């Protein structure tokens, strides 16, 4: 097999796209030292790519989500869509971009469990300076400053999507349980905003800290989120859950299943 073709097959193999007999291909590689070495070079490159913690997508893909969303909405309703075929392409692209941005943010977070497809917010200094300061402070190295940042949302009137998304991201991804606890309380003030309830449901399934779990259970119960019953059941049935967390989950479940 010539080298070019071998490389192409190796790339397809590592992408899970190799057609033909994969076992035969693997046997061939194993029996050929040069081919094995080439495979390892590509494998090592792929490994680095997959474990890269701060990759950024190319500019063409790195568009402001809302702008792109508006563009796609226009395209799907336009009789002569920009992509030139029909609404299916626009919808597929939109779906893929949604997944793409969600996973892009996921790769930003050092291999932590997947977050919701959150808007990749970027604060703008021309916005309310209070909001800008809060968003900046959410990246502070100290826990007490990040808690301060979360608490700033209490004082921001007409908090926009930026703030809510930032609090959601903090709840799902901050490394400190103290900060995540503060985020539960702060985000609770926006429980009626779109997406916030979903954030709580994702958070309760991935959270490990007992105090944060209790706060989430109490919050979901107080906002009467019946979808949380499944999550409460998981906690109750999990042998590793501490008893007092199970008790709270059980109590929350009873309250949610009562007829108001």
């Amino acid at each position, binding site marked *: 097999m010539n080298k070019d073709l071998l490389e192409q097959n190796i790339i397809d193999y590592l992408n899970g796209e190799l057609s033909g007999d994969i076992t035969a291909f693997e046997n061939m590689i194993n029996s050929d030292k040069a081919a094995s070495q080439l495979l390892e070079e590509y494998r090592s490159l792929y490994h680095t790519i997959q474990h890269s913690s701060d990759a950024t997508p190319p500019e063409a893909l790195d568009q402001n989500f809302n702008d792109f969303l508006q563009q796609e909405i226009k395209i799907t309703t336009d009789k002569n869509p920009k992509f030139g075929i029909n609404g299916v392409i626009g919808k597929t692209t939109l779906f893929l971009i949604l997944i793409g941005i969600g996973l892009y943010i996921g790769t930003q977070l050092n291999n932590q469990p997947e977050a919701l497809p959150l808007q990749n917010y970027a604060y703008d200094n021309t916005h309310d300076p209070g909001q800008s300061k809060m968003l900046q402070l959410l990246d502070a190295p100290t826990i007490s*400053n990040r808690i301060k940042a979360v608490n700033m949302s209490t004082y921001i009137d007409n908090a926009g999507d930026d703030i809510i998304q930032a609090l959601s991201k903090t709840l799902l991804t901050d490394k400190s349980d*103290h900060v995540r606890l503060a985020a539960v309380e702060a985000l609770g003030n926006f429980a009626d905003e779109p997406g916030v309830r979903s954030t709580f449901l994702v958070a309760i399934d991935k959270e490990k800290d007992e105090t944060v779990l209790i706060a989430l259970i109490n919050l979901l119960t107080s906002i009467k989120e019946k979808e949380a019953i499944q999550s409460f059941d998981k906690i109750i049935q999990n042998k590793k859950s501490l008893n007092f967390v199970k008790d709270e989950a059980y109590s929350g479940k009873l309250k949610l299943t009562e007829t108001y």
Partner: protein
Amino acid sequence: MKIIYTVIIYFIGLGAGYGQQVKVTPTSEWVEFIGVNSVNIKGYNGSEIIIESDDEEDEKAITVGLKLWDQDEFISDTKAGLKIDQKSRALIIKQTSKNYSCGEDREYTIKIPKNMNIKYTHSSWDGDMLYIEDMAGSIEVSTNYNEVILKNVTGPMAIKTVYGSIDAEFSAVSQEGSISLYSVYEHVNITMPKDTKSKFNLKTTYGNIYSDLDINVDKSKSGKTGWTGSKLVGDLNGGGVDVIVNATYDNVYLRSK
């Protein structure tokens, strides 16, 4: 900047009363306690961390040459029932051997340079009291069962407990960062100088909020929450450091010094 890590061990057999004393020169700004059941921490002006245990450890002779099995590993070189490791991020102090035979576990009294930062975590049922006095650094506490008492501290701090109460008496309140106190089932009781500049965000779901401070309450953000809850947002002396308090099932007390 690395400082050479030194451990000086003093074995003091004083009969009844004091057990052992251990001195450590820390090389980082943080000291982290893991699973130490009962500890009294006192800040002071020195540079060493001085650990005293009340346990005489009569069994010392019988354990010579043996390693302690601690949950998932054998440990040698424990000092006063503690495993002490100097890491780049913190001096880690972990309680290894426990002594419940007399119904009480050992207590530790620890002197720490007052500007050091403290992190304390404890999750098991045998968490007892955590007492911290005369500290001016950051304090982070995450515990399920410990009662937390803070005296003559400044913050910043983040403290959360499940079954323990939090009693915090501030000498002066640092304007850096924030002060966050959270107890699920017990009260939070705070005492601070009445001229402190601060912003309060106080909440309880099933308890009440009490105060004798002259708080300028933001009525648009304060009042009843849900059927039983209570919330108070306001500032003291024009506002300042964020003081965020939550006692879910019990009361919040905010008093002047």
